[in-house]
């Protein structure tokens, strides 16, 4: 008790501001029906969950490596687009699986290059630009192969339907994929080989770049070859069985496809994050401002690539069957009934709640919160992360490869953002500007919570989500202000503005955010 009094006395301005905010909020609640209130809170929680998926990655990355990853919004959007593709066009996913596996197999040669280079002692002479040239060459070879590989979705002759159409069709319960492309075997083999070579060249570029900074290389064992070899086999198998697999996935139904989409988007996001960190971010650890600018640029590039591949139109992503039934027994009365009958909505305290938007997303958000929190608090890697935030050099001096941990954290953060993107797809729609609004929301949540604090990211997201939805609600029902005769109806643009104002107020009173450390 004395502790709390003490805390209040020491943080008087903070306490007063918070109290004032709470009072304002409670006053504003006056004109609201209880059912409105419940639905608004639930919607707020759902928005908070998506925001949290972005903000948590932010805070993990910022906390450990001081990088404010401004590409995070774009990565969120990329997650949504990848999820959409896996979900609505599973044939594209399978078409891409083979070149992807081959490319990764090529990348996995990096340790071999490492060892070879240090033996040949060429790394020292490679200079600053050569590694990047090889990297660019590798990407060129990759593109050369990709263009030749038969990917149905990219074929102009079958491109009679825009991507939007597939989404609309799926919403009506149809999946009518175009006939798969055929290509002669020689061309496919050439394409496969150049994709693999592209990966190998990229790995060589990376290895050269890394090797410039050191004199001796780690030993490699032949066991390092097993994984790439098996990836090659998998890739070729997927190519051989492409049609059968596609038919199988289509037949499996939207719920399973959604699961696949979530996994694919999250893993792809994580992979992208790992690649980003190990190639572009790493050289800039000594120059934080430049990292900021770099991620800003990457965000722009990513968005342009997405527009080039998928077009500018907003696309629909229908909800999976599990959350989409309307007819018999729906809206359900209990959660259990909703699951059994796969209801889209559920009756709760006099209002109707959407099972996907208001329940599923929130539950996933909570699960992620708990899992990441446990990862941080209970596992060895979490221990290393918490220690690394404070003293990177000492962790390294204990014999721990901190760089690997950094890459992992970056991949984790980006993976979470991509997960947020694919989850948000069915509720928000998929469009090329979805990243920007989430970047802003995530930044606000992060700043409110205190930049490096993981619980802070959760609290900040909660505030941002709730505030947004309450403003939206007041936009519909109006808010009775003491001095105005007419109820005031905030317009949609005021939604982000209100969260920004909240951030500014909180930061002015508590420059380190709610959970931030002093200094």
């Amino acid at each position, binding site marked *: 008790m004395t502790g709390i009094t003490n805390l209040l006395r020491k943080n008087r301005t903070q306490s007063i501001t918070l109290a004032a905010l709470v009072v304002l909020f409670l006053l504003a609640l006056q004109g609201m029906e209880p059912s409105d209130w419940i639905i608004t809170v639930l919607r707020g929680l759902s928005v908070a969950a998506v925001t949290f998926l972005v903000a948590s990655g932010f805070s993990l990355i910022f906390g450990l490596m001081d990088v404010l990853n401004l590409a995070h919004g774009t990565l969120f959007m990329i997650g949504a687009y990848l999820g959409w593709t896996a979900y609505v066009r599973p044939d594209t996913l399978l078409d891409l699986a083979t070149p992807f596996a081959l490319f990764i197999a090529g990348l996995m040669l990096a340790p071999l290059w490492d060892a070879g280079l240090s033996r040949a002692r060429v790394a020292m002479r490679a200079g600053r630009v050569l590694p990047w040239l090889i990297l660019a060459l590798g990407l060129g070879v990759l593109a050369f192969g990709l263009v030749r590989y038969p990917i149905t979705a990219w074929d102009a002759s079958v491109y009679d339907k825009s991507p939007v159409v597939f989404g609309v069709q799926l919403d009506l319960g149809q999946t009518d994929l175009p006939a798969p492309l055929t290509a002669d075997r020689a061309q496919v083999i050439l394409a496969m080989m150049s994709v693999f070579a592209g990966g190998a060249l990229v790995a060589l570029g990376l290895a050269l770049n890394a090797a410039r900074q050191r004199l001796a290389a780690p030993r490699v064992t032949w066991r390092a070859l097993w994984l790439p070899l098996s990836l090659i086999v998998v890739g070729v198998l997927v190519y051989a069985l492409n049609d059968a697999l596609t038919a199988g996935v289509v037949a499996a139904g939207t719920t399973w496809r959604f699961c696949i989409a979530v996994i694919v988007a999250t893993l792809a996001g994580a992979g992208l994050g790992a690649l980003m960190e190990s190639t572009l971010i790493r050289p800039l650890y000594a120059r934080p401002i*430049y990292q900021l600018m770099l991620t800003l640029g990457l965000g722009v*590039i990513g968005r342009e690539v997405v527009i080039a591949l998928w077009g500018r139109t907003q696309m629909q992503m229908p909800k999976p069957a599990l959350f989409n039934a309307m007819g018999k027994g729906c809206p359900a009365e209990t959660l259990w009934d909703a699951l059994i009958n796969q209801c889209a909505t559920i009756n709760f305290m006099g209002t109707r709640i959407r099972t996907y938007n208001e329940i599923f997303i929130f539950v996933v958000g909570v699960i992620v919160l708990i899992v990441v929190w446990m990862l941080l608090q209970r596992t060895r890697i979490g221990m290393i992360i918490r220690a690394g935030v404070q003293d990177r050099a000492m962790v390294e001096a204990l014999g721990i490869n901190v760089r690997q941990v950094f890459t992992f954290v970056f991949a984790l953060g980006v993976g979470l953002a991509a997960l947020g993107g694919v989850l948000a797809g069915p509720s928000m729609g998929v469009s090329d500007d979805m990243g920007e609004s989430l970047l802003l929301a995530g930044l606000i949540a992060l700043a409110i919570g205190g930049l490096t604090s993981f619980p802070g990211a959760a609290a900040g997201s909660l505030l941002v989500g709730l505030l947004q939805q309450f403003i939206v609600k007041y936009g519909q029902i109006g808010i009775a202000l003491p001095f105005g005769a007419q109820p005031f109806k905030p317009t949609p643009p005021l939604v982000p503005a209100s969260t920004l104002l909240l951030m500014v107020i909180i930061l002015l009173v508590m420059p380190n955010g709610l959970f931030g450390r002093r200094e």
Partner: protein
Amino acid sequence: MKILRDHSTFLAVVVFLIAFPFLMALLDGQSIGAMLAGQSGNSKFYQGLLIEIFILGIFALSYDLLFGITGLLSFGHAMFFAVGAYTAGLALKSLKLPLPQTLGLVILAGIAQALLFSIVLPRVKGITFALVTLGFASVFHIVIMSHELNDLAGGDVGLQNIPKPDYLDPAAQRLTFYFVALAFTILVYLFYRRFVDSPTGRVCIAIRENEHRAQMLGYNTFYFKLVALIVSGITAALGGALHALYQPIVSPVTASLAYTVNALLIILIGGVGTLSGALVGAAVFRLLQFFLDKFFGESSSFILGVVYVALVLFLPYGIIGTWRAHRLEWQAAWRARFARVATMLNRKT
């Protein structure tokens, strides 16, 4: 004579820019008279491009003073520019004020914003300052786009039909506008040079280098940052006013984060903290944008993004910064090369 020698590059550039419209006309085969009469042609078009570069350059200069010289990272700088543009536009259109009064209003608006930003200065530092300024600018961005202000600010289309004074109409009096913009840019640049060399500017640099030490020496660093903010705010607002006078529409994009990023990109291209880099960067940026748009259309911003990333990775000090760092070696290398060629030639004869 000494002044001429010391500032030869600067003077050469100024002379070139003054001669530019005439040179363009000559190259195009247009008569000088036609050019002076403001008839369309290549010269008029490129004058327009250069005016845009001047405006961007002023905007980037004001950002360089904050970020490059004083070390304040702001993500809300576009607001300084947009407030100037909207104030000028509204004053001319809705208040029907003459130009001088409008400019006075713009300057006041610039000071007001600087004061707004300075409220948070003592509380937040570094990345948090960047985020708070981003918050301010985004709120402004949202507000001018809102439906309530549709009649006034034109919503997400922007402010249109701003009445331009006859003597400075960018369509009819392009050449006059060109010289006014050029003169204003040179004036701003010279003022900034002097500011950086003034006792105040020196302290601003010291704050960027080591704020704690500056405080321990007895400088109340808040006031110096405030001065930098005010100077930067007024300059950016005037740049915005010029923009409002020149462009047919003042778009709300000028208040967005993307516009701040443009300024960041420009000084990155030119060299952070070099002042002249801001102008060089603005030229490179706008010309790159122009030609990329011309040749690549849709994907031009992708290429611009790649250029940007490459710059961050390989040319962190920008064009001017790298030039300054290596000028002596390069000059020596060229001199050596000339000497070698000269001896070779001598041997032959």
